[in-house]
């Protein structure tokens, strides 16, 4: 080791508020339920049973869980959209939509350092991200679009058998795609996005925790991330949303 060992003082930052954490973990549970039941519904297991059909309700239960989970998913999603306007700055909708030059520039930096493994400013091999980094924010924006696609196609397919007015609001969706067949196919394809997203997402959380040591993994538990004191002091006054320092 050439450089002198520098012991960091870390400063605790409350990044993910309780509603954000609850949204996140409810989403995890509900998505697992949706994917598992969805796979079963698209290709059910071969069950050999001596029971009369009237005594079992396997497919029925899988579908019931899928629909119940879909409602939870939808309203959880709506809540998160609402929280994008009322939550703290790390939960704000501006964290997700690349509209400013700064956002795009940060995405480029994340790409260079995390994907291309290039060195950043001052030869550093990591970048500062207290909340989402810009790249992650943009990917979450894409997931929100896929959320929307799943809600539209899912409730669209559900509408004809629904008796409540709410799912019936989506009855126009299959008509746009010319019928249920294509709508179902889109619903099935889009599911794969969640699976791939979840894997990459979990990996990257571990990755950031590993190379940054700022408590990336535990942040979704307690809500805290830790940043170096000197970094905190340097960024304190130039933060664009100063009202967060209440």
């Amino acid at each position, binding site marked *: *080791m050439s*450089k002198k*060992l*520098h*012991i*960091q003082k870390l400063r605790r930052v409350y990044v993910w508020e309780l509603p954000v954490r609850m949204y996140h973990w409810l989403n995890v549970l509900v998505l697992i339920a949706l994917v598992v039941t969805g796979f079963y519904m*698209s*290709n*059910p*297991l*071969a*069950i050999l*049973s001596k*029971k009369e*059909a*009237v*005594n*079992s*309700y*396997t*497919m*029925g239960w*899988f579908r019931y869980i899928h629909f119940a989970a879909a409602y939870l998913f939808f309203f959880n999603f709506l809540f998160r959209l609402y929280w994008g306007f009322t939550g703290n700055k790390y939960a704000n909708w501006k964290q997700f939509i690349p509209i400013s030059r700064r956002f795009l520039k940060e995405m480029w930096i994340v790409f260079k350092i995390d*994907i291309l*493994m290039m060195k950043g400013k001052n030869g*550093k*091999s*990591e970048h500062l991200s207290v909340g989402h980094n810009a790249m992650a924010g943009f990917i979450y924006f894409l997931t929100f679009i896929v959320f929307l696609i799943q809600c539209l196609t899912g409730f669209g397919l559900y509408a*004809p*058998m629904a008796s409540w007015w709410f799912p019936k609001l989506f*009855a*126009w969706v299959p*008509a746009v795609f*010319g*019928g*249920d*067949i*294509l*709508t*179902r*196919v889109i619903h*099935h*394809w889009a599911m*794969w996005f969640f*699976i*791939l997203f979840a*894997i*990459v997402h979990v*990996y990257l959380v571990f*990755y950031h925790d*590993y*190379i940054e*040591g700022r408590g990336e993994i535990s942040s979704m538990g307690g809500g805290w991330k830790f940043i170096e004191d000197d970094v905190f002091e340097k960024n304190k006054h130039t933060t664009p949303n100063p009202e967060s320092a209440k």
Partner: protein
Amino acid sequence: MINDASVLKQPTYYEEVERKGYSRRDFMKFVSMITAFMGLEKSAIGQVAKALETKPRIPVIWLHFQECTCCSESFIRSSHPIVADILLDKISLDYTETLMAASGTQAEEALKNTMTKYKGQYILCVEGSVPLAADGVYCMIGGKTSIQILEEAAEGAAAIIAWGSCASNGCVQSAKPNPTKATPIHKLVSGKPVIKVPGCPPIGEVMAGVIVHYLAFGKIPELDRLGRPKAFYSKRVHDSCYRRPFYDAGLFVETFDDENAKKGYCLYKVGCKGPSTYNACGVMKWNNGTSYPIQSGHPCIGCSEENYWDNGRMYERASAFPGFGIEANADTLGKIALGATAVAIAGHAIATNIGKHTTIHNLEEEGKESEHELNV
């Protein structure tokens, strides 16, 4: 919609029925049956009977383009003989290529006469899709392309009925790559109500029901978002399937020759499209209510749904993904993507440990130093 004054010279339907030798009782049986099929309440029986007794018959032009005539075949086999004898015989006598006696110039003359004499009053029934490629030469009758014939006939029509999947959504001719650019009727005419009656073929009673509804009430039946009569297309084949309990129980036929097939389990896993197909097969059935595909052990192929030829394979639930291999399904591609992601992640993890070695090392040293300094 129907101008009674100018079609008065025509006999009424009941007069035709009597002339054909049917009894009053036969007539009332037909009326009750067709009213029930249309999904109307009992009180409507009187209305339908009265309409058929008093209203003069409406002239019908029935055009055949790119099709196989299975719609006509289905229609003339609908369960009550009056349907074929009166509705088709009398109705479409004006012009229908496959059933009229006249041919050549005489037939064209008859078509022209009906179009001019009953302008704005006749029903135009179209069976088959219209090819648009190469200026429409793929389907020509009497020296005219089908699009020309359709446009001329549609102009004076009171309403247009698109019989079958060809006319409603293109069917097999419009499957990829659609060499003749076969186009369904609703994309070619504007300003006229188009009733889609999809199916390959549609059920004969459904066809009769649509026509009788127009005759009896002088307006087209209530349509859904895709332009199909709600009375017949608002439920999925799945919802009225007698094998549905097996579906809910999770009991499926795995192959056509297995024990489950003999037990009559659900055909979902051998590709049944019943859950995404809107039609009345499970209720009305075919051939005088004898049976329908699922009852005879074959999965529904979704023949009344748009693009059913291109939207997946007939004997699989899996959704085909064109352009990858011959036909990869979404799950195969998903698994490949999953594998690729795993490889990419492994690669990234290795690259991180090499490329960011110093950072990781420093963090570890820092942590170890704290560990040394601690007593507890």
